[in-house]
C-alpha cells in the first residue's frame, strides 16, 4: 500500500517535471526526458499492478495521506517546477481533496479534485504554455503536433482514460524531438 502511494507521488512529480522541462531554456534535454520516462514507467507499473491486486482483493484504496514533511534535503532547495498534481485517474474513486504538497515553500499549493465533480469556479482556467501552468491531461488547448505524431482523442469525464493518457505521455516523451 505504501508502495502504491509512493508510486503515485513519484508519477505526479515526474509528470510535472516533464511538462516543466518543455519550457526550459535550451530546449528539451533528451537524457533527462529519458530518465524521467524510465522512472515514470517503473512508478506506473508498480501503481497499476498494486491497484490490480487491490481490485482483485476487493479492498478500498487507502485514504489520502499528506506528503512526507519530515526534514529532507528537498526542503533546502526550491523545487524549480510547478506543484506536482495528482492526475484525475488517481482520484477517480475518491472525492477527498488532492494531496497537499509541502515540499515547496513560497508557492501556492494547488489542490485539484476529481474533475467530474469540480465546480466551475475551481477549474483551472490558466492558459497552458506558461511555466507555472498545471499539467492538465484533459486537453483544453491543442498541443502542436510533432511530425509523425497522432492526435489522441480522450473522452471527457472518462476515469479510465487516465491509463491510456499515462501510456500516451510515456511513449510520446521521446518523439517530441
Amino acid at each position: 500500500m505504501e508502495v502504491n502511494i509512493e508510486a503515485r507521488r513519484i508519477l505526479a512529480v515526474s509528470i510535472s517535471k516533464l511538462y516543466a522541462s518543455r519550457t526550459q531554456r535550451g530546449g528539451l534535454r533528451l537524457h533527462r526526458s529519458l530518465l524521467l520516462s524510465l522512472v515514470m514507467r517503473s512508478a506506473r507499473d508498480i501503481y497499476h499492478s498494486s491497484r490490480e491486486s487491490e481490485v482483485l482483493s476487493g479492498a478500498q484504496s487507502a485514504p489520502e495521506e499528506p506528503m512526507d514533511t519530515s526534514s529532507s534535503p528537498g526542503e533546502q532547495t526550491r523545487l524549480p517546477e510547478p506543484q506536482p498534481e495528482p492526475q484525475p485517474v488517481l482520484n477517480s474513486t475518491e472525492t477527498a481533496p488532492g494531496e497537499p504538497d509541502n515540499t515547496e515553500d513560497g508557492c501556492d499549493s494547488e489542490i485539484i479534485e476529481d474533475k467530474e465533480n469540480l465546480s466551475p469556479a475551481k477549474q483551472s482556467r490558466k492558459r497552458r504554455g506558461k511555466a507555472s501552468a498545471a499539467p492538465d491531461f484533459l486537453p483544453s488547448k491543442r498541443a502542436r503536433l510533432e511530425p509523425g505524431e497522432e492526435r489522441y482523442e480522450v473522452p471527457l469525464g472518462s476515469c479510465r482514460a487516465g491509463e491510456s493518457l499515462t501510456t500516451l505521455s510515456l511513449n510520446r516523451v521521446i518523439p517530441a524531438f
Partner: protein
Amino acid sequence: VTGSPGGDMQWCFSQVKGAIDDDVAEADIISTVEFNHTGELLATGDKGGRVVIFQQEIENKNQPQFRSEYNVYSTFQSHEPEFDYLKSLEIEEKINKIRWLPQKNAAQFLLSTNDKTIKLWKISERDKRPEGYNLKEEDGRYKDPNTITSLRVPVLKPMDLMVEASPRRVFANAHTYHINSVSVNSDNETYLSADDLRINLWHLEITDRSFNIVDIKPANMEELTEVITAAEFHPHQCNTFVYSSSKGTIRLCDMRVSALCDKHSKLFEEPEDPSNRSFFSEIISSISDVKFSHNGRYMMTRDYLSVKIWDLNMETRPVETYQVHEYLRSKLCSLYENDCIFDKFECCWNGNDSVVMTGSYNNFFRMFDRGHRRDVTLEASRENSKPMQVLKPRKVCTGGKRKKDEISVDSLDFNKKILHTAWHPQDNIIAVATTNNLYIFQDKVN
C-alpha cells in the same frame, strides 16, 4: 612530486576566485574547469558563455613554500546565446567543456563548446609593438608623403603584455542533440564531439564537415533506451575512444575496425546488485563522466553515488569501486524531487594515477588514494580560506550519535554542489569549482 593524500599529505588553501556575494548570478555559475597540459594555465567556462584563463606565475625561488599563484591571464566571451528558428529553441551559451590542445608554438589553443557549436580559440601574447613607421605617425595619422626624405626600418619596442583571444575555427551545425563532450586525439590533428546520440570526428583544420563515427539513434525514437553521456579519446592510441551511456555501460571502440563504430570492441558493464533496486536505479547508474588514466591502462567512471576504476583488459566488472556519498541512497526520492539526482558530477585523476577525486554536496569533495586504500572528504568554503590554511577532513554522520565536528546528512546543503574539479597534471595542485567560485588548493610542502 605526488604523495598520498590520506596520511602524510595535507591540503592547504591557496586561492579562491569569484564573487564573495551569496547571491549568485546565473551567468557566473562555473560549468567546466580544465588545466592545460603543463598545468601552467587553468581555464574555466561559465553559464554566461565566458572563458576565464588563469596563469601560474613563475615560482618564487626564494620562498619555495609558497607555490606560485594563479592570476587572470585572459577573459573572453566564447559563446553567445543563439536561437534556432527552425525548432523555435533557444541555444544556451553555457560552456559545457573546455579542452586544451598540446602547445605547438608560442600561442595556446583550446576547444570550447556549448550545446551545439565547438570553437577553437587561439590565445596569444603580444608584448612588443612596432614603432617607427615610415608612412604613419605614432598616433596612426598618415604622413604627407612629400615630407618623407629617408627610409627607416620599424623597430619592435616592448609594451605592456596584452593577451588576445581569437576564434580560429567554428565547428557548427553538426549536432542535432546537446553536445556533452569534446576530446582531442593524441594525433593532435583530430578531435571528437559527442551529443546524446551521436559522436562526430573532426579535423582541427576543417570546419565544414565532420565524420559521424557513432550513431545510436534508433529508427523509431519510441524505442530509445539509452543515450551517450560522455566520450573520450585514449591518451596514446589515436584509434581508440570510449563512450559511456545512461545505462551505466562503457563502450570502447577502435576506429580501424570500421568507419562507423556502432559496434563496440569492448563493452564494460557491471551487473546490477538486485538488492539495491529502486525506482531510481536507472538514474543513479547513469554515468556522468568517463576519464582515461594518464597511463592509458585504466579508465574511471562516475555515476551518482560512486566512482569506478576499470582495467581496460577486463570488461566484466570494475577493479575498484569507491562510494562517494552512499548515505544518499536512502534519500533518492527527495533528491529526485529537488532535481539533485540529475546532477552530473565529474571526476579526475592526479598526475601519476595514484589518486582520484570527485565532488559531492555541501561543497564537499572526495579523494580516493588507490594505493593506500585511503579516502578523505574535504570542504571548499570561505571559512577555511586563510592563506595556507590546512583543510581539516570532514565527516558525514550517517546515523546514530553524531560526533563533534561531524555533519548529519539532513544538514547537508544540496544547493552547494561541486560538479567540476581538476588536478594539475604534474603537481599536487587542485582546482575545485563550487557554484560560482573557483578554489585552488595545494599540498603542504613540509
